[in-house]
């Protein structure tokens, strides 16, 4: 069954279907002909089979996914995929669920998409086991037969919280454990729902993965920094910063750079697509960006300071404090050197020594 037939059978109207295509087209920044392409693809193509695995994660990606901006989008997306296995959302459980998965993998070998939510522990298998098998084992097997892998969220893209120092479970992101398969890193903690929807729709429409950047993220959603799309940017250039969360400047909505905003370091679409039906995003709500779409953001503590603490040297040691201490030490060092020079070289300074030059004594090039 094609996607549209499936929808029709479920009682959606043609109008609702076209609306969905329009929204997705706009989201991906396609032109009108692109929207037509979406319509055509969904009209004629088979549904894509998806295996969706949950490893070490908190399910916020799934939470985000089912709350796409327009209710229609969320609903339709779930129809859009033939979600053959998702231990969170599927009705079946236990042996039945596992059998469904096995059957689907066998039937659609080489054609299905593997969606991975969560990181994969490479330490003890005990850290994450599903149906008696380790996450690593399951992943390796399913990845082998997948046409492409979508890594949802920071866990699957770069380890997120579990992967933070000291990483007790030795959590690894998807792209570190597989090679030779296209991996789409859909970054964020969680990723923006519409971004997730956009990535899937793109794959279904064009039959290939979207163009990726150097970190494997789809360029159409991750090409710009939050800083460059932030509506508070004018305050940054004007040097008007919030200095504490309860000051007058915070009320006026000034820039949160001084409060440790990681917007200047973070590639994501929060400033454009926003969250929760495009209502707001963290900065708009008065909270600095914590950079959740960047690798290793959890090790960039404290969140409310511009520069992270230097690991291993006490809690509050930022680079600037260490630098200032080194500067003071150096100043003290040269001062001591100056004093010792005057003592040690007193004879020389008072001209009581002569050094005749010996043959071939001069150095230098």
């Amino acid at each position, binding site marked *: 069954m094609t996607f549209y037939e499936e929808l029709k059978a479920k009682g959606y109207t043609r109008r609702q279907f076209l609306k969905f295509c329009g929204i997705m087209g706009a989201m991906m920044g396609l032109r009108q002909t692109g929207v037509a392409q979406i319509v055509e693809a969904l009209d004629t193509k088979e549904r894509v089979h998806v295996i969706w695995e949950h490893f070490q994660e908190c399910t916020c990606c799934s939470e985000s996914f089912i709350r796409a901006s327009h209710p229609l989008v969320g609903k339709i997306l779930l129809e859009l995929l033939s979600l053959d296995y998702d231990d969170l959302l599927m009705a079946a459980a236990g042996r039945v669920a596992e059998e469904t998965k096995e059957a689907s993998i066998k039937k659609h070998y080489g054609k299905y998409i593997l969606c991975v939510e969560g990181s994969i522990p490479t330490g003890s298998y005990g850290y994450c086991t599903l149906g008696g098998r380790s996450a690593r084992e399951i992943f390796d097997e399913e990845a082998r037969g997948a046409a492409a892998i979508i890594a949802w969220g920071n866990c699957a893209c770069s380890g997120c919280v579990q992967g933070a120092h000291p990483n007790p479970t030795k959590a690894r992101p998807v792209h570190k454990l597989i090679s030779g398969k296209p991996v789409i890193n859909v970054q964020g903690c969680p990723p923006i729902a519409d971004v997730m929807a956009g990535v899937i729709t793109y794959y279904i429409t064009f039959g290939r993965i979207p163009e990726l*950047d*150097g*970190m494997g993220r789809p360029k159409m959603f991750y*090409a710009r*920094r939050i800083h*460059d799309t932030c509506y508070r940017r*004018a*305050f*940054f*250039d*004007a*040097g*008007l*910063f919030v*200095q504490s969360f309860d000051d007058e*400047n915070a009320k006026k909505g000034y820039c949160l*750079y*001084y409060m440790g905003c*990681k917007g*200047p*370091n*973070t590639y994501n679409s929060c400033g454009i697509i926003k969250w929760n039906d495009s209502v707001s995003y963290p900065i708009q709500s008065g909270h600095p960006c914590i950079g959740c779409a*960047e*690798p*290793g*953001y959890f090790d*960039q503590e404290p969140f409310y300071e*511009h520069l*992270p603490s230097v690991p291993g040297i006490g809690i509050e040691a930022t*680079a*600037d404090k*260490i*630098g200032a201490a*080194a*500067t003071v030490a*150096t100043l003290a060092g*040269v001062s001591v*050197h*100056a004093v*010792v*020079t005057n003592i*040690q*070289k007193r*004879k*020389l*300074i*008072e*001209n009581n*020594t*002569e*050094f*005749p*030059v010996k*043959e*071939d*004594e*001069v*150095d*230098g*090039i």
Partner: protein
Amino acid sequence: MKIRRRNLREVYVWQLPVRFFHWINAAAIVVLCITGYIIGDPPAIQSNAEAIHSYWFGYVRLTHLAVGMIFVVNLLFRLYWAFAGNRFARWNNFVPLTRAQWRSIFKTLRVDILLLTDKPVYDIGHNSLAATTYLGLFILSIIQATTGFMMMFVTTNNIMEPVTTWGLQHLGGFFIVRQIHHILMWAFILFMIIHVYLVFYHDYIERNGIASSMIGGWKFIRADVMDDYEKKIKRNRPDDSDPCDEPHE
């Protein structure tokens, strides 16, 4: 009055391009450290002005980026002059490849850093230890410029943008690049303190006019030291025609 140094010879060591490079470089580094520090830790300024009337933080960044470009071009020029300049400006001063340079480095450490003996190390241009620190500073500058460009070209249409963004992403993202760039600022500050102190130290101990030499280009070297040096050059490199004490650009 008792004096230690008679028969001095004026020697032209730093050519005009080297001196220009030096002071542009020094000024640029001072400005880049100040503006960079402000970018990293902006001072609290309360203002009732509308953002539209103010752009001071933008100007601080503009200054940083503009001076950053000057800094890089200046550095590239010095790289060229390392092949076109006189014997004291040439690249091989800075790269300790010969046994003699290493011997000189250890001697300088003993005499001038650890203050173990009085007998000075005789060298005309850079001493080998100082020259090696300049190589370090040069490498530091390249890293600083690279990380700076990575941050600067992001979301611009610069032709270098694909390259620098690729680099930024392969280094592990913005966080790490910004942190490297920020931490290295302190390396420049430490260099400045030690460098300026040691210039003063040498001027005080050796009385060769080294501090002013970076302004006028001339040093005052004992004639017998200079003779020995010239003899050595004649013996080791008979067809080296680069004179030691003539201003030639």
